[in-house]
């Protein structure tokens, strides 16, 4: 019986490729990983947005309206809804001129209790040290 921590780190903006989307779908799939594991074993993900990756967390994305696809906003909120920790680097937000008002802070409207964590890169570094495997997107 054990828990394996995995860090999913998104470094690039949304929509250029599937990159961020795949980070989101893969991290969320940790919920069902136990069907392949021994009893009691679990995968415990942390989803982290750093660098230009913080642009994935901008609110009010109209991807469905204009292109008929789910937004990364929607995916992030789904992550919070299943109680997956979602972290965003606050230094990077500041560098890119993003305020807290512009980014996702919670998914209360969907009934999620967990909130986005605004983390320093130092905290993110410590989380990466605590994860045996790192998955950079």
């Amino acid at each position, binding site marked *: 019986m054990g828990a*394996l921590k*995995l860090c999913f780190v998104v470094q*690039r903006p949304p929509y*250029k*490729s*599937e*990159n961020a989307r*795949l*980070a989101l*779908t*893969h991290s969320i*799939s*940790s*919920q*069902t*990983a*136990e*069907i*392949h*594991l021994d009893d009691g*074993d679990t*995968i415990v*993900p942390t989803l982290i947005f750093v660098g230009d990756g913080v642009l994935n967390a901008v609110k009010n994305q109209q991807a469905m309206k204009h292109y008929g696809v789910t937004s990364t906003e929607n995916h992030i909120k789904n992550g919070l809804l299943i109680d997956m920790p979602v972290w965003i680097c606050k230094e990077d937000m500041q560098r890119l001129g993003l305020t807290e008002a512009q980014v996702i802070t919670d998914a209360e409207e969907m009934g999620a209790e967990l909130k986005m964590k605004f983390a320093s890169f130092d905290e993110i570094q410590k989380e990466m040290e605590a994860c045996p*495997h*790192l*998955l*950079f*997107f």
Partner: protein
Amino acid sequence: MGVLTMGVFPSLVGSGTLDFSFKLAEAAMAKGHTVNLWLSGNAVMMAKKGQRAFKDYSHLEKKMMELIGKGMETTVCEACAEARGYHKEDTPPGMKRASMDWYLAKTFKSDRVLHIGGE
């Protein structure tokens, strides 16, 4: 001897990343390690049989079949494949199809994970 799980995501016809991962897998197996390979995103292109070999493109089907024959467990992301119109009957023999949780579960008993993301 250890277990290495590789996840390959962005690779495509014409990019060197799939070539890299197959050569690395081969080298690891030659040293007695066990290798698991997860193909997701655009790397699911390996899940299409019948790719014609041109000298302009690296043609990896043969190498992949060889590595699968030697015991490399190779699984392709089912949804990513379906989105590209690659159905079960397109999948080369020996390659598995699964949902993403397969990859995460494989990392559990791996000594090392090399996750090749990017664009």
